[in-house]
């Protein structure tokens, strides 16, 4: 058995993409976009994380159950994030007495 899960070309292209996205993140940092700089930087980080998980961690090439586990983790995280922020960000909206 001499098969590769991922080709050498895919590894190299992923590496170049990750480095390119890091340069883009640094440029975003210098661009002075206020609070949007973090938001854009985290979005770029999410793309980089997806590349790493798909190619270097072989999530795209392994068993289907792996992708189900990853999707479950991401959905859980997004639920956790949105519900928590939804709570904290809306607390001042309604003037409950004694709050």
């Amino acid at each position, binding site marked *: *058995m*001499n*098969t*590769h*899960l*991922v080709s*050498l070309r895919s*590894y*190299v292209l*992923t*590496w170049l993409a*990750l*480095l390119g996205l*890091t340069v883009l*993140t*640094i440029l*975003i*940092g*210098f*661009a*002075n976009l206020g*609070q949007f*700089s*973090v938001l854009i*930087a*985290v979005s*770029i*980080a999410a793309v*980089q*994380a997806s590349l*790493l*998980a798909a*190619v*270097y*961690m*072989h*999530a795209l090439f*392994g*068993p289907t*159950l*792996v992708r189900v*586990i*990853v999707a*479950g*983790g991401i959905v*859980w*995280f997004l639920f*956790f*994030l949105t519900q*928590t*922020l939804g709570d*904290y*960000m809306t607390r001042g909206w309604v003037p409950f007495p004694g709050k």
Partner: protein
Amino acid sequence: MSEAATLALREQFATPRQQRETASIGMWVFVVSEMMIFSALFVGFAVYRLSSPHPFDIGSGEMELTLGSINTVLLICSSFTMALAVYNAESGNQRWLVLFLLITMFLGSLFLGIKLTEYYDHFRDHKVPALWFHYAGSSAGKVQMFFIFYFIMTGLHVIHLVVGLGLLLVMVVRSLVGAFSPEYHTPILMTGVYWSFVDVIWIFLYAIFYVPGFHIK
């Protein structure tokens, strides 16, 4: 089936592929549970950052941006060399496997050295929360909160990195004694998954702690 594959196949599995996929699923359950540990910290950070963005920007302005950026590149390169180690394990190129594992360890150690240098700089600048903290401006408490998140999250990441270096060392030793073959190299694959996970966490840490500081410096 070759002798190496027969030896590598545990009795509860029908084929080496089934054994490898079972390990992969187990590893990913572990990775996602690790992700949940970091998630609590990321969500906590998001809540505090949204409630006091300016003091958190000031905290980011205290970061060593050059060192942070170099560390990001180092970890990305180490994930690449780890992937090349996996590639050579699949091919059965023992020498190249060991070489790429050693390069990955070297890059990881460089990251660790730079991170410890940064910690020393924060100590020198009185930016260690609770123990050794001084900030002259207003909102000192909120700036300190930034550093509490910074030390807990990067510290937890460093612990994971050190565990990764230990795993790599074990893989180097096992590779040298010929424990792996094209038929059986699952531990190398799983170490690769773990090492890239450490990289994933750092990429997010870099985005939230360092990037806002670029336009402040």
